[in-house]
């Protein structure tokens, strides 16, 4: 799949995110939109998976640690064919498997439950450790956020991964510099994050997390590392693709109203009014 095709899928995933968040009426907007390119690159290009066999034992594992960005996970899984896209509007609704924070349900590709920050990271370490003990070839991708690195548990997991030389563990950190109370460096300074990871004996790359070429190259580099776990610090634009959400921490934990939904969908279909939409 080429970059143009990946971009189209990412745009489609962002449109799903806006629609499902509007329908849900609560949830997180900025993080899911910022991470759409990474999720699409993983599920449409980089992962060894078979959506028709979500429990296939040799599949690459994706463990989402910052569970609150699950709309992008659900939208990507639906886009990739794990379940019908019509389900997406049931996000956060009674009886739906699309819980406000993810709940493990392998048949839909949802590999783990998470929400309280730091927990998914440790789970990913366990999954990768089991793969190593069982001599499996699968890679474990842990998707984490910068704010999550305020939690002590995250650093406990980082230490153990290096100690156990989990070279098939690849963590992608969404470095968007925002969290609920504001900019990360005001809430709790995390830079230099790359140097911190290096000091913990990880292989580290820093990339533009909204650039498909960089994402693909970084993951391929990470897969080639054989003696330590790998971290990709992905600088993403929170709210990416929606003119009035980009880089605004106020959109971390809120959802669009009807007018904002219409404007957001228009932004996505016209690439922020740079092109004309067929819907106009």
């Amino acid at each position, binding site marked *: 799949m080429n970059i143009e095709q990946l971009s189209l899928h990412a745009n489609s995933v962002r449109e799903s995110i806006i629609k499902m968040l509007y329908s849900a009426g609560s949830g997180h907007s900025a993080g899911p939109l910022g991470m759409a390119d990474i999720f699409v690159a993983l599920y449409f290009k980089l992962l060894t998976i078979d959506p028709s066999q979500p429990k296939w034992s040799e599949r690459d594992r994706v463990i989402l640690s910052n569970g609150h960005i699950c709309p992008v996970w659900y939208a990507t899984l639906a886009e990739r064919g794990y379940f019908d896209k019509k389900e997406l509007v049931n996000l956060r609704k009674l009886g739906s498997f699309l819980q406000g924070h993810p709940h493990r349900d392998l048949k839909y590709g949802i590999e783990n439950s998470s929400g309280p920050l730091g927990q998914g990271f440790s789970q990913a370490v366990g999954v990768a450790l089991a793969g190593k003990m069982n001599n499996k070839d699968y890679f474990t991708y842990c998707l984490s956020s910068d704010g999550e690195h305020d939690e002590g548990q995250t650093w406990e997991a980082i*230490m153990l991964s290096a100690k156990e030389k989990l070279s098939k563990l690849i963590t992608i950190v969404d470095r968007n510099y925002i969290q609920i109370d504001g900019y990360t460096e005001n809430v709790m300074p995390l830079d230099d994050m790359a140097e911190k990871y290096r000091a913990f004996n990880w292989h580290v790359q820093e990339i533009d997390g909204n650039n498909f070429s960089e994402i693909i190259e970084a993951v391929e580099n990470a897969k080639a590392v054989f003696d330590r776990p790998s971290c990709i610090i992905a600088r993403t634009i929170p709210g990416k693709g929606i003119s009035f959400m980009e880089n605004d921490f106020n959109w971390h934990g809120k959802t669009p109203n009807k007018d904002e939904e219409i404007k957001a969908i228009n932004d996505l279909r016209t690439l922020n009014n740079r092109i004309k939409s067929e819907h106009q």
Partner: protein
Amino acid sequence: MALCRQGFGEGLKEAAEKNKKIVGLCCDLTGSTKMDIFKSAFPDRFVEIGVAEQNMIGVASGLAMEGKIPFCASYAVFTPGRSWDQIRVSVAYQNLNVKIIGAHAGLSVGPDGATHQALEDIASLRAIPNLTIIAPCDYYETKKATLEMAEYPGPIYLRIPREETPIITAENDIFEIGKANIIYQSKIENQIVIIGAGPILYEALEAGKALEKSHKIGVTIVNSHTIKPLDEKTVLEQIEGKKLVVVCEEHQKTGGLFSAVSELLSQRKPTKVLPIGVDNLFGESGKPEELMVKYGLSKTFIYKKITKAIQN
């Protein structure tokens, strides 16, 4: 006298010989939890996590997602003490096959003082869905519980003490998770039932036998080793016709076995229950036997409490 934790260590090794899926995790307490017995036998299946209980529980969940059966050992004050949220979300919400061992539980850890005396662990876990809670009473029962846990699917918390405790069960006694055992019945009419879990059952047994002698009152003693799910059938059967129901535990009176029994009886057969436990207090340094006396958990205290209750 023998160590419950020795029973855990030997039981785990034996279970692991039969089942290759079993792995061991420990937070820098391999010797004192007796996880070292497993570690020596299966070094490749043991993971030293370091002093990081939250990570241990999370990593165990990940291992269980891939079909392993992780046994995680630390002191009860650290796990569940420091890892309650991880037990709730990563283990219980996902309903994973993770076994958690809280060692050195209760006042009897002695000189280490209040910070290390877990008296709230059962209360903190009992409200979590999916989780089974077991508090064995001696070496044999701990060994059997460990072997049973390996076969029993789902998350389980096993609570064990530090000190050597009297052997009150026999090697051949049947142990079944969720099934309470009647460990003593007087030959005269049984008017009192004492329900307990853990090594305090020995104190209860001694107090019961003394009452039988001094007051000619028959006593039934129920070992409710599985605190959750409570063996409701046995409890309801055994309180039938009794003049006094007593619950003994080396734990706060809030949220443990006394609460579990009271919750059941309030719904099914409203009954006054006499609690023997720690009364909303932190412990302190001291010899285990001194602490048991001071905090009202000794056989003499139990005897006096029951004597007073039956006189009223």
